[in-house]
C-alpha cells in the first residue's frame, strides 16, 4: 500500500456523510439544504471516477477535478444565494460567482488540462469563505442562534469555513513543496476532509425538521 492510498480514507468520510444525509433526508427535505444529499453522492461518484481513472487506467485525472470545481463552487454559491436574506449579501454572492466563473473558464482555456487548476480552487475557496462568513453574520443576528446546533446550514458553513481556511494556504504553497511524494500532505488533506465531512455528518445527525424549513 502506498502513502497516496490514504486518500481513500478521505472518501470514506465522504461516504459516511452522504450515507447520513440519505437516512436523515426527510428531516431536511423541506429546506434549502436538501440538494446536499445529491451533491454529496455526486462528489463521491466524481472522486471514485477520478480514482479509477488515475489508479487503474493511470490516466492524468486532473481534468475531472477541474470540471468538478465548475459544479461544486457554483453549487455552494447558489445555496448561499438562496439562504442569505440581506440584499447586499445576495448581490455580493452574484458578483463573486461571476468573478469565479470568469476565472475558472479563463484557467480552463489558458492552462493545461493535465494540471490541477489551483488558482481556480483558491478563488472558489476564498469566495466560499466569504459566503460562510455572511451566513454566520446572519445567524448571529437572528433568533435562529438559539437552535443553531440543529441547523444544518450552520454545520455545513462551519465545515466549509474550516476546510477552505486550511486548504487555501496549502494550495498556495504547493509550488514550494513537492506534495506528490509528501506523506504530511495526505495527512493534512485527510484531516481537513475529516473536519469538513465530520461537520456535515454532525449536521445530518442533529438536524431537526422544525428548524430547517425554508
Amino acid at each position: 500500500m502506498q502513502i497516496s492510498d490514504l486518500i481513500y480514507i478521505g472518501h470514506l468520510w465522504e461516504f459516511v456523510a452522504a450515507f447520513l444525509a440519505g437516512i436523515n433526508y426527510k428531516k431536511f427535505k423541506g429546506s434549502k439544504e436538501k440538494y446536499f444529499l445529491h451533491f454529496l453522492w455526486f462528489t463521491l461518484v466524481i472522486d471514485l471516477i477520478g480514482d479509477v481513472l488515475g489508479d487503474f487506467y493511470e490516466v492524468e485525472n486532473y481534468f475531472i477535478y477541474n470540471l468538478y470545481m465548475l459544479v461544486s463552487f457554483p453549487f455552494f454559491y447558489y445555496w448561499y444565494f438562496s439562504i442569505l436574506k440581506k440584499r447586499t449579501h445576495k448581490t455580493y454572492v452574484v458578483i463573486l460567482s461571476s468573478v469565479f466563473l470568469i476565472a475558472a473558464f479563463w484557467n480552463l482555456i489558458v492552462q493545461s488540462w493535465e494540471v490541477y487548476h489551483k488558482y481556480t480552487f483558491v478563488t472558489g475557496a476564498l469566495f466560499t469563505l466569504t459566503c460562510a462568513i455572511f451566513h454566520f453574520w446572519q445567524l448571529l443576528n437572528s433568533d435562529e442562534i438559539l437552535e443553531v446546533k440543529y441547523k444544518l446550514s450552520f454545520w455545513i458553513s462551519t465545515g466549509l469555513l474550516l476546510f477552505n481556511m486550511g486548504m487555501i494556504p496549502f494550495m498556495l504553497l504547493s509550488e514550494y513543496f513537492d506534495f506528490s511524494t509528501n506523506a504530511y500532505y495526505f495527512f493534512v488533506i485527510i484531516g481537513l476532509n475529516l473536519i469538513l465531512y465530520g461537520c456535515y455528518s454532525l449536521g445530518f445527525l442533529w438536524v431537526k425538521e422544525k428548524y430547517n424549513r425554508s
Partner: protein
Amino acid sequence: MGQGEVQSFLIVFSVIALSLAVTVVVLFVLFQKRKNRLLKQRAMDKEAFEKELSETQIEIREETLRNISWELHDNIGQLMTLAKIQVQMEGSGNPQLDEASETMGKAIQELRALSKLINPEALKSLSLAEAVQLEMDRFNRMQFLKASLEVKGDSKPIDPKEEIILFRILQEFFSNTAKHSKASELRVLLSYTDSYLAITAKDNGVGFEQKRDAYSGIGLKNMRNRAKLVNAHLELFSEKNEGTQLKMTYNFVD
C-alpha cells in the same frame, strides 16, 4: 524532501492548525455570547409581559369593583332608601315596622361603607390607615369578630396606585379570615419607619397547612403577584389551629 523543507512544512502545518483552532474557539465564544444575550433578553421580555399582565388584571378588577360600587350606591342604595321611607310612612307607631326600618337603615349604612371600600376613587382619597380602619369598623359592626388596627410611627404618603394594591392584598387576607378561618380576633399593625412600612395582619383562626391547603392556591398567588408589582416583600405564616399571619414590607425608596 530535505530537512529544511520538512521544517518549513511543519511550521506551515502548525500555523494552519492553530488558526483553525482559533477560528473554532472564536466562533464558539461569539455564538455562545450572542445566545446568552438573547436568552437574557427573552427572560426580561417575559418578565415585562407578566408584569403587564398583572397590571391589566388589576385594572380590570378595579374597574369591576368600581362598577359594583356605583351600582350598590346609586341603584340598590336608592331602592333601599325608598323602601325605608315607605316603611316609615306606613308604620309610624307600629314597633315591628319601626324595627324593620331601623334594620333597613343599618343595611343602607353597611351598603354605603362597602361601596366606599371597594370603590378605587373613594379609596384614593383615604390613607391606607383610614381605609383599613373602615374595614375594621365594618367587621366590628358585623359582630362576628373583633378587629383592631394599630398604627406605629408617622404615617407617610404612598403613591395612591400602590396604596390600593397594598389595601387589596389586605382585603384578600381579611376576606379569607372572614370566610375560612373561624377566627374571633383580627389584628392589624401598620408600622412606619423612614425607609419602609411594615404591615402585619394576624388572626387567631384555624389556620391552614402551608403548601397543602387549597387556600394557598389562587388567593395566595394573587397576593404574591400583587406584592411583586409594588416591590413589596410578602410572607404568610400559618399552622393548623395556630392562626394565620401576614407580614408585608413595603419600601418607600427602591
